[in-house]
């Protein structure tokens, strides 16, 4: 199939493994789905300390289940990407460890404590859910299929995040102050979740043309703000003065002042070069290197796979 035919036919769940897709489409889809899959894994990495730190048995169960789901979503998405025939799951996971795999800006910042958890579990996951809902209509059918399952599971994550937010927001004055501080720290990153406004990136445009994406980043950001700014206010959170976000009632539009956001940091993050993000990637790399011996042992037991530890003896 040539690229013009792809653009002409592009529609919800239009293409699958049986179609002879041009390399350009397969590469663009791989880039997008791999980014999504990586984000699930690195998002799980951000949340995992709170399985241990959760302050009740039920919360611990819920956070553990959420982290488990994120890894499961990674599994589903790598599969959808793998079917494009560009990279295997192993290659994509190797890239992630090596620092070559890109993922969402918010997952480059580890969370300090429980007060910050709802910033990820409610706002960031809420933003992700907003985007994911539009991907049910993506043109790569295996991706849409994975999205169906992800959306099916993800609802409880955001509801649990909101429950944590509500519990803190209805606590002591000190709790509310700490929550507000966490919100002010995270709000600019959350605004940057959908990238720069009027994003002219060539990747984005192509993805729209071939039906991989179905909604522009601007529209997604606006839809997110429409739903979540009122939520923030409901829980007593005040939008900081900067970055300025202005609501235009006439056209139901939230204007985000680009110049108030730190785009240099954003693009450093995007390149996997921001220090906290580098730290997260290195943690993942160390953890994966530590279990490399297991994969060797199960993949080629007949070779007797001399373990590094044994070789050191």
């Amino acid at each position, binding site marked *: 199939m040539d690229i013009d035919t792809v653009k002409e036919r592009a529609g919800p769940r239009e293409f699958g493994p049986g179609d002879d897709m041009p390399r350009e489409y397969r590469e663009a889809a791989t880039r997008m789905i791999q980014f999504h899959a990586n984000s699930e894994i690195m998002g799980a990495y951000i949340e995992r300390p709170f399985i241990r730190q959760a*302050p009740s048995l039920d*919360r611990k169960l819920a956070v553990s289940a959420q982290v488990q789901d994120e890894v499961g979503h990674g599994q589903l998405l790598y599969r959808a990407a793998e079917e494009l025939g560009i990279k295997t799951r192993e290659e994509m996971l190797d890239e992630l460890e090596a620092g070559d795999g890109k993922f969402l800006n918010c997952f480059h910042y580890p969370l300090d404590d429980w007060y910050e958890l709802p910033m990820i579990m409610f706002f960031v996951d809420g933003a992700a859910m907003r985007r994911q809902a539009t991907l049910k209509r993506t043109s790569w059918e295996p991706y849409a299929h994975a999205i169906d399952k992800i959306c099916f599971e993800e609802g409880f994550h955001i509801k649990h995040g909101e429950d944590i937010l509500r519990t803190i927001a209805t606590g002591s004055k000190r709790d509310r102050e700490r929550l507000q501080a966490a919100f002010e720290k995270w709000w600019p990153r959350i605004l940057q979740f959908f990238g720069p406004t009027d994003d002219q990136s060539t990747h984005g445009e192509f993805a729209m043309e071939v039906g991989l994406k179905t909604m522009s980043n601007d529209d997604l950001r606006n839809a997110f703000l429409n739903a979540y700014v009122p939520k923030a206010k409901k829980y007593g959170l005040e939008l900081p003065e900067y970055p300025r976000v202005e609501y235009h009632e006439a056209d139901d539009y939230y204007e985000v002042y680009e110049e108030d956001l730190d785009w240099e940091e954003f693009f450093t993050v995007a390149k996997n070069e921001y220090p906290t993000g580098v730290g997260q990637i290195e943690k993942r790399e160390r953890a994966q290197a530590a279990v490399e011996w297991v994969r060797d042992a199960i993949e080629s037991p007949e070779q007797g*796979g001399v373990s590094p530890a044994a070789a050191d003896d």
Partner: protein
Amino acid sequence: MVDGPEELSDRERAAVEAELRTLADDEFVVAERYTEWQVRGPTLEADIAIANIAQDELGHARLWYDLLEDFGYDQVDLIWERDPADFRHATLVELPFEDGDWADCVVRGYLYDTHEHLRLQALEDSAYAPIADRVGKVKGEETYHREHTQNWLERLAESRAGRERIQRAVDRLFPHALTLFERTDHEETIVDTDVRPEPLADLRAEWREVVSGFLAGLGVDVPVEDAAELLPDSRGRDGTHTEAWRSLYDEFTFTYRQLGRSEAPSLMPAPEEADVDV
């Protein structure tokens, strides 16, 4: 059959409580260590499976702690504000492990699950009905756990590197696994009143036979000395713990202390309300 604490003498109450605490604490702490594998497993699938096992164990802890609430405690007394020296779990479940030591995970799981299976079988006949009633649910999930660890042990044992790793884990963990069978001060009453009709000494003998047979079949050596010679200094059941326990306790109570609340939020109905066949 006894249906609740109000039908028990003081001595019997203490015995049921002691049995429940060891059950609940073992499950709670073993789950804490399992969750460390989340997002760190050798494959995505292994990661997702171990998360599930951790949640199962936490769910079991929840069932046993819930029965302790019948004795007038709440979750805060039982976990979040409990003196760490009052926890009665075996030292096996609290031990830390080196990064990437998947052999520790499966050996620990195997030793623990085999013990749990035998202990639950004994508790099916408990004269304390609330315990006997919940055994079925717990056992259902334990079968998966045991098969999972056995499958992994068999896979790993096929390679020399894997077998060596298993051997090292067995050498390290076996003495601590023996603390699963250490007595509390109430062992005699527990057995005499049929809270658990089978004494720990008998369970230990059965466990050693099963474990030694299976591991020997994989080409792994299992200690043969008497328990008295092998047991570590800290025994868990008497409130003595390894160094690792205190830091683990500080970590899992961190947010609870930081929030300064005096309750632990519930997100689900209590087990007895959740469904009738618990």
